[in-house]
């Protein structure tokens, strides 16, 4: 019997542009993606000081449409999509009946009876399958638009100034977590004021065939203002500084929203049942058995995913993400600890190879953009 050849990773519409820019490419969730162009630290700093341009075309866009689209999503997700006004979005999660997280999502209400659910690339198929199952019997249709949609994000303090001359939408009218329909460089686009960096910015959803044109237009307009292309490496350091969770690290099938400090996303007060309700009500009532915290290393060493966290009595948890923060100049991390160890200013140890390195619990986020 012959073995099937390993699957070839998919290319986003921008792959040849990444190659032309000299990007270092990696395989991520079945896609060939840029991890960096000029260097992670340089790209990270550009986003904090000017702006960065991200190819996010690998992500999943699932459109749910129909008279029961809102009600169907309310029963499928932990949040309450019918409470969204048209042109508004919120952060959400889709959980299993036991309360474990299948994915974290952003849900956009683009029309009274049309919602766009944006899923992580690594979970797009799982989310699509789960939604199809959960919407069965509802007057609502799921249309997986992932392969038909390109997504480019511009993030940073100069994002608005760079984008405004290219678009017919007055960006000042889009509030944070808002979405508007318009054009970018003449290309029809949904423009969302959402992001994963802790900076102001816009995510541009376009027809997949226009992704290259949108990228080229924004990059050309932005270069003189300091805009640079930014890869997944800096995307990770930026979101970690902003205290944002990453599915696969802070969130997974065996984690519930309350452990991750995301209980506010679960709308127990909404009407009707939803998948995971009884399990999540129990956690909300009893309190989670572990808590996600931010940590700053107070000795020499960088905490990394998997490193044990210790208190005076022994092991209390483990690190989920860690890096050297380019903005703070300190090693930062997130990890799960026992609730008794979760108060800011608690001193713990992280086991890094043979050493125990002191770390201090801090409130998240590590970085907040200037007002």
């Amino acid at each position, binding site marked *: 019997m012959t073995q099937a050849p390993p699957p070839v990773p998919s290319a986003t519409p921008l792959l040849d542009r990444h190659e032309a820019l000299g990007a270092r490419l990696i395989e991520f969730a079945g896609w060939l993606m840029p991890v*960096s162009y000029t*260097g*992670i*630290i340089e790209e990270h700093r550009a986003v904090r000081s000017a702006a960065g341009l991200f190819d996010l075309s690998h992500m999943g866009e699932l459109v749910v449409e129909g008279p029961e689209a809102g009600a169907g999503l309310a029963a499928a997700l932990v949040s309450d999509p019918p409470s969204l006004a048209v042109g508004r979005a919120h952060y959400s999660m889709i959980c299993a009946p036991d309360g474990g997280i299948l994915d974290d999502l952003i849900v956009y209400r683009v029309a009274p009876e049309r919602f766009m659910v944006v899923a992580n690339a690594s979970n797009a198929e799982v989310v699509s399958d789960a939604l199809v199952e959960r919407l069965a019997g509802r007057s609502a249709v799921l249309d997986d638009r992932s392969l038909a949609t390109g997504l480019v994000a511009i993030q940073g303090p100069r994002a608005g100034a760079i984008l405004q001359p290219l678009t017919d939408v007055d960006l000042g009218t889009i509030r944070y977590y808002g979405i508007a329909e318009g054009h970018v460089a003449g290309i029809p686009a949904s423009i969302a004021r959402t992001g994963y960096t802790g900076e102001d910015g816009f995510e541009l959803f376009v027809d997949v065939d226009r992704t290259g044109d949108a990228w080229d237009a924004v990059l050309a307009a932005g270069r003189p203002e300091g805009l640079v292309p930014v890869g997944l*490496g800096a995307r990770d350091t930026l979101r970690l500084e902003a205290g944002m969770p990453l599915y696969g690290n802070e969130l997974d099938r065996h984690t519930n929203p309350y452990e991750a400090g995301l209980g506010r996303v679960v709308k127990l007060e909404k009407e009707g049942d939803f998948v995971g309700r009884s399990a999540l009500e129990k956690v909300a009532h009893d309190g989670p058995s572990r808590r996600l915290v931010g940590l700053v290393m107070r000795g020499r060493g*960088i905490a990394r995913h998997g490193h044990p966290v210790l208190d005076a009595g022994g092991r209390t948890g483990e690190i989920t993400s860690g*890096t*050297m923060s380019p903005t703070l100049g300190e090693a930062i991390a997130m990890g799960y600890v026992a609730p008794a160890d979760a108060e800011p200013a608690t001193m713990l140890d992280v086991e890094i*190879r043979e050493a125990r390195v002191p770390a201090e619990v801090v409130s998240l986020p590590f970085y907040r953009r200037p007002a």
Partner: protein
Amino acid sequence: MVPGDLRYTKDHEWIRVEGDEALVGITQYAADQLGDIVFVELPDVGRALDAHGTFGVVESVKAVSDLYAPVGGEVVATNDALTGKPELVNDDPYGEGWIMRVRLADAAQADGLLDADAYEQLIAGG
């Protein structure tokens, strides 16, 4: 072209022999592969080294890499400048980015390592 007066290992360390001591670091190729280096775990002065054994760690933003001793001996000095400026390894890996100075147990061990041509061939092969 890598410096002609150094010897190299398959793990991309370099060694510059100076009598019965030697300077050790990692190559530009290794530094480029790692990306921005943000942390170097240096061995303690006085530590005994086995040839090919690990003696420390170099960390980039995303990854942790072991460092392997090109030869056996004893650590007599480490580049403490790397504590505050780990990026020296990226910017000047054969000069200011040196990692440790060792007293060689056996100077002949260095002769068995790759010369510049052999190392160039190794990295050209990908």
